[in-house]
């Protein structure tokens, strides 16, 4: 019984794509309604967002700058979700990664760029990965709920990094709450002069392909997916669930850390307190819209990146707060989380189908 078999995979990916696009559209329409209710002009607002995100080369560069960290946190959330884990601590892991990269990047060892840059990246990734591992360890060894642990560890990281940036790591005479500048040898190559667009974008694209490949083609990737979809079956199959959980949280933390690393070694050139407008949490939205497909994270991050870049212009031209972008993002997450809504729409649309066609369908099912 059940569904016809012969079109399962293709239909499945088509379905999820329709669902994601549908969620985005509904969110935008609802956003327009809310704008109307507050007396703003929705068309003007969306026009401004479009203009500010893809309206010019400069605008598009802004979009790509915003896209880069979102890709990393989107991959981070997605990776944990593959093992059935919910990583809500991406913001904290990102801050740890940023600080690690800032310290290693400012460290004057006289190293050439091809050693110093990878080293700074590595330190950042390890910092974030180990921070993620805390939650993985507590979950694996003591059954601690990772939702709560990761969420709470955000506060610990935020305050700890704030202390470091205010105190021990703040250079003397520095006005901003920030660390010492990263050396030239540890900075990402800028793709456009004097703009925040760097080679980190290529790393993000490469990583999404690698994550896809890792999950699909490697033994640990297989085990992660098995644990995520069937815990008891994985236990029965002799998969070490504790080890898989820890590995997943380490990698997820490392991916989130890359968002911070890309900001410090690329955009800002140092750790500046409050550099993140919530890239960590935005990863949830990015991952949701990509509906679990690492190869779609780039597209999804680009959409949210554009929204974010456009929203910055909104403030100036339409007197709409940039938080409007956050609202749209939240609405997308809510609608992606309602697959049943689209199921209803689909069944309604299907009704006029003829009886013989269905009978044939049923034959296939058996």
């Amino acid at each position, binding site marked *: *019984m*059940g*569904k*016809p*078999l*012969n079109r*399962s*995979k293709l239909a499945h990916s088509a379905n999820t794509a329709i669902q994601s696009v549908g969620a985005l559209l509904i969110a935008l329409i609802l956003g327009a309604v809310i704008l109307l209710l507050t007396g703003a002009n929705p068309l003007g607002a969306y026009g401004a967002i479009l203009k500010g995100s893809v309206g010019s080369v400069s605008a598009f560069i802004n979009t790509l700058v915003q896209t880069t960290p979102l890709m990393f946190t989107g991959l981070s959330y997605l990776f944990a979700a593959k093992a059935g884990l919910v990583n809500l601590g991406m913001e904290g892991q990102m801050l740890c990664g940023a600080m690690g990269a800032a310290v290693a990047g400012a460290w004057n060892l006289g190293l050439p760029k091809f050693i110093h840059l990878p080293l700074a990246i590595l330190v950042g990734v390890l910092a974030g990965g180990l921070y993620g591992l805390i939650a993985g360890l507590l979950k694996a060894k003591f059954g601690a709920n990772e939702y709560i642990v990761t969420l709470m560890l955000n506060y610990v990281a935020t305050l700890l990094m704030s202390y470091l940036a205010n105190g021990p790591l703040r250079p003397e005479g520095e006005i901003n709450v920030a660390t010492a500048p990263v050396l030239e040898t540890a900075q990402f190559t800028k793709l456009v002069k004097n703009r925040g667009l760097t080679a980190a974008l290529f790393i993000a694209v490469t990583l999404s392909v690698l994550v896809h490949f890792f999950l699909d*083609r*490697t*033994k*640990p990737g*297989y*085990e992660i*997916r*098995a644990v995520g*979809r*069937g815990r*008891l*079956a*994985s*236990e*029965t*199959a*002799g*998969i*070490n669930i504790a080890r898989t959980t820890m590995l997943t949280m380490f990698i997820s933390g490392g991916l989130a850390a890359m968002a911070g690393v890309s900001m410090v070694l690329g955009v800002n050139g140092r750790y500046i307190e409050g550099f993140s407008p919530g890239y960590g949490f935005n990863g949830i939205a990015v991952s949701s819209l990509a509906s679990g497909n690492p190869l779609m994270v780039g597209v999804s991050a680009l959409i949210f990146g554009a929204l974010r870049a456009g929203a910055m212009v909104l403030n100036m031209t339409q007197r709409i707060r940039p938080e409007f972008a956050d609202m749209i993002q939240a609405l997308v997450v809510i609608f992606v989380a309602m697959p049943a809504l689209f199921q209803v729409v689909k*069944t309604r649309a*299907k009704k006029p189908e003829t*009886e013989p066609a*269905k*009978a044939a*369908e*049923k034959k296939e*099912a*058996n």
Partner: protein
Amino acid sequence: MCQYDIEMTHITKQYPLVLAVDDVSFRVRRGEVHALVGENGAGKTTLMKILYGMTSKNGGEIAIGGKPVNFKKPGDAIAAGIGMVHQHFQLTPVLTVAENVVVGEERQSWWNFNRKKAIDAVDEIIREYGFKIDAGRRVGDLSVGEQQRVEIIKALYRGAQILILDEPTAVLTPQEVDELFKVIDRMRSLGKTVVIITHKLKEAMAISDSASVMRDGKMVKAGVPIAQCSTDLLAKWMVGRDIELDSTRRAQQFGETVLEVKGLCCRDRHGPVLKDINLRIRAGEILGIAGVEGNGQTELIEALTGLRTPESGQVLLRGEPLTGGPLQFLQKGVGHVPEDRLARGLIKDLNIRENLILGYQWSDRFAGRFFLKMNDITAFSRKVIDEYRIKAPSEKALISALSGGNQQKVIIGRVFEENPQVIIVAQPTRGVDIGAMEYIHEVLLNLRDAGAAILLISADLDEVRRLSDTLAVLYEGEIVTETPADTLSEQEIGMYMLSGKMDGEEVLADGKTA
């Protein structure tokens, strides 16, 4: 002239993707016991749920006692004198038998509910039909068989003239089945009409007056008098081809002992669950373990597959102690067909290919140190799909899109292809259609003939009796008897399953009687 109590004509039910009931007409005479036979998913239960007003129909007419009806909800059907006992009971464990029966009644006059009168009425039904049950007991303390009686009493109390029983014997021991059949006999003699939904053909033959057979949503044979039926005929109609279910073959000879269990004890929070289990399985032997579910089967399976560490005792594989977790057991060659297919056996959101390596993902047949050998896995998957006749469009189809029988074949293929020394097989054909059941039995027997040592744990007594070379009964965590197959009758095994002993055995043990 015959009078029909139920007349369903040209009933059709369309689910979004499946035509569950396809132009079916079904008639039952007043006062007869009618078996509605068919495979899982043939549409029997859907048809009866339509009759009971639980499911809407897309087309067709229903008449009860000659009067056209159109039920919108079960309440309408109950008012028209129809009762249905579902596979999953709808009882409140903290209430007594009588309270469960009359529940709902108090709504009619909540300020003046006459408890005494209600209980008397329930007692009256219990006496009239000869139910073995005490109206004052808490339902939570009752066995599954007794709970089923409560459901039947409930239907009768609400004035059912027509009673529909959905797979009533699926959860019962042979003795409880006899008990149920006595009650059904009594109902027949009191003029009630009974419909039994079943796929157990022997039982259909034993209790009913006539039978109707459904296949793939269609009525294949309607209202055939039971005198003109046989289990072979029914099976043929059900499946659409000849089926050999009764034939079997025993092992010619046993090899050396492969798996030995010595003094195995396990306990959980509530106390001991396995008490001093001693077993040995030889090469080329199927050791079958019968027993009512919940008597330690799950714990035994877990202890023999590394999922549970025993409190004391040993499991020896060719004389070597087996220790560690599931991975160590699998690597040493203990295959496992889990009792709960979709919880422990398969991951339904992964595809066939990914499920075919589950449990053997460490094996160098499927993976190197880091990378999966995708080409080898795909080739293996195609081979298994082909050899085990798994009905699927490709190795990339999701497990959730397969039927129960094909899902089970994925597990069987995965485990058997590894050529394990020992296989722990639990409930291999639960919820599987007859065709797949016949096939899985054949594969098990072939593997045994090839020299594997097999432990079969099944709640289906017919299955255990058919396949086992040696048969043991597990009762309250103990092996209460172990004998070569065919030395005990079905009734004798049933007695062991229910009470852990044979009637009169205690007397014999005292030595007072010869």
